[in-house]
């Protein structure tokens, strides 16, 4: 695991250690090559309370991504987990007074659930990747506006909590309930700014793996990852994983509001996805749903210096919950491919480690990676452009020089 000292270093030493071209990342903080030039002027490596250094993209609301070195294990430790907020009023919540109100016009009755109530319900565990919809937005060509994430707006944790279905059973769903909405305790600085409220289809809400989690990797959730409890929607992007959840409502009509439409939409027909959110679809766009199959090299950075001879390149692969079937690696720009060795399987929603041994020659060595999931879906070689920069799973290629 990379140390704070390694990451911070002096500016020059940092560049050398992380192997980044000086023009791209003069401060050596681990920026992803290809993000907008202006990111380098303001991004810093900083520790939030209780966190190891993360790459700060914006202070307020706080948006901090993990350097790729934090993804060398299939479980991302809590203090290395990325932080993402839409709104800047983020209250500290006391566990003792925390309550979730459960109801809505699609429910038979209403209830208030405390943290103790949640913990008394049957506990479920799932290891799942939480990835921001906009992860890799900064690599969009052309660039698009937003938080200019590189590779690190994601992490994988073991989540423990109550099934959302069991909580909904306490109020009873009417047959007309089509969506379940979530609101968190965080809110806007101005009353006129739309509060961040999201919904998922009722069918997704009652799946066994959709949880209200109060533990992350065996500990309470860090404040900035949603303490005391957050929604876990394994396979789907992070926008639905409501932090500090305080209201859950069953709805008989589609949820409106800025954060459902126009935000978090992808064009219809551009991506090969299976999960649909039918009640929210329009003729032209649809809410983002499950993650696309993807992979990341975490053992090396683009431009790293290596010694000629046998080296092992390794990383993680993940998808929308079908499971990784194979990771293929090419050292000749995609003409021929070899199978990577898959590592520990922590479940279909988890990061799947992979590694590949290659014989590095003197000079430049390119490494191109392509993951395939159990549905047979693979990464793309060309960007599928969309206005918000979502679902970027272009095969990563790095150059290692011996």
């Amino acid at each position, binding site marked *: 695991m990379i140390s704070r000292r390694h990451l911070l270093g002096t500016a020059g030493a940092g560049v050398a250690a992380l192997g980044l071209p000086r023009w791209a990342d003069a401060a050596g903080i681990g920026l992803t090559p290809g993000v907008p030039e202006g*990111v380098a002027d303001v991004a810093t490596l900083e520790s939030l309370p209780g966190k190891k250094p993360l790459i700060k993209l914006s202070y307020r609301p706080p948006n901090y991504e993990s350097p790729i070195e934090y993804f060398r294990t299939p479980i991302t430790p809590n203090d290395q987990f990325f932080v993402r907020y839409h709104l800047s009023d983020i209250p500290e919540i006391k566990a003792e007074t925390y309550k979730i109100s459960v109801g809505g016009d699609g429910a038979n009755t209403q209830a208030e659930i405390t943290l103790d109530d949640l913990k008394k319900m049957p506990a479920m565990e799932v290891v799942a990747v939480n990835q921001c919809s906009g992860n890799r937005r900064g690599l969009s060509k052309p660039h698009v*506006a937003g*938080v200019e994430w590189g590779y690190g707006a994601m992490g994988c944790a073991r989540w423990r909590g109550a099934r959302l279905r069991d909580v909904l059973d306490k109020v009873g769903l009417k047959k007309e309930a089509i969506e379940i909405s979530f609101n968190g305790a965080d809110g806007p600085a101005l009353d006129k*700014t739309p509060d961040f409220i999201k919904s998922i289809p009722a069918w997704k809400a009652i799946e066994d793996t959709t949880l209200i989690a109060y533990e992350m990797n065996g500990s309470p959730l860090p404040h900035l990852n949603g303490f005391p409890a957050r929604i876990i929607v394994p396979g789907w992007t992070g926008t639905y994983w409501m932090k500090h959840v305080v209201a859950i409502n069953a709805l008989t009509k589609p949820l409106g509001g800025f954060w459902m439409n126009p935000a978090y939409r992808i064009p219809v027909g551009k991506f090969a996805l299976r999960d649909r959110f039918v009640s929210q679809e329009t003729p032209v766009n649809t809410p983002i749903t499950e993650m696309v199959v993807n992979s990341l090299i975490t053992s090396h950075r683009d431009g790293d210096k290596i010694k000629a001879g046998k080296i092992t390149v390794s990383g993680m692969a993940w998808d929308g919950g079908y499971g990784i079937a194979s990771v293929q690696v090419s050292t000749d720009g995609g003409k021929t491919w070899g199978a990577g060795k898959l590592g520990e399987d922590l479940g279909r929603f988890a990061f799947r480690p992979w590694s590949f041994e290659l014989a590095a020659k003197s000079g430049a060595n390119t490494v191109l990676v392509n993951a395939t999931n159990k549905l047979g879906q693979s990464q793309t070689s060309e960007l599928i452009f969309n206005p918000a920069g979502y679902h970027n799973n272009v095969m990563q290629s790095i150059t290692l020089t011996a």
Partner: protein
Amino acid sequence: MRIFIIATAAALLALPVLAQEKPIQLKKGDGLDKVEANCQACHSLDYIPANSPFLNPASWDGEVTKMIKAFGAPIEDADAKAIADYLKKNYGG
């Protein structure tokens, strides 16, 4: 508290959500005072350089409009124009 936030620019500067927020020094230029007085109510100024230098004039206009129409930023028309002009000139692509 929320009323206080929109009351004065001075109050805005004193209200970082997280203690470690450091001031972001944007490029000097006409309109910078309007940017500092209006935009920081809701977000730190690092968003601006990070979204550069690729947004064209129409896109910067669109961003300012989005802050007002979609996010409810209480920015007067004259200030909105000054902000957009500043962004186009100093952070345009």
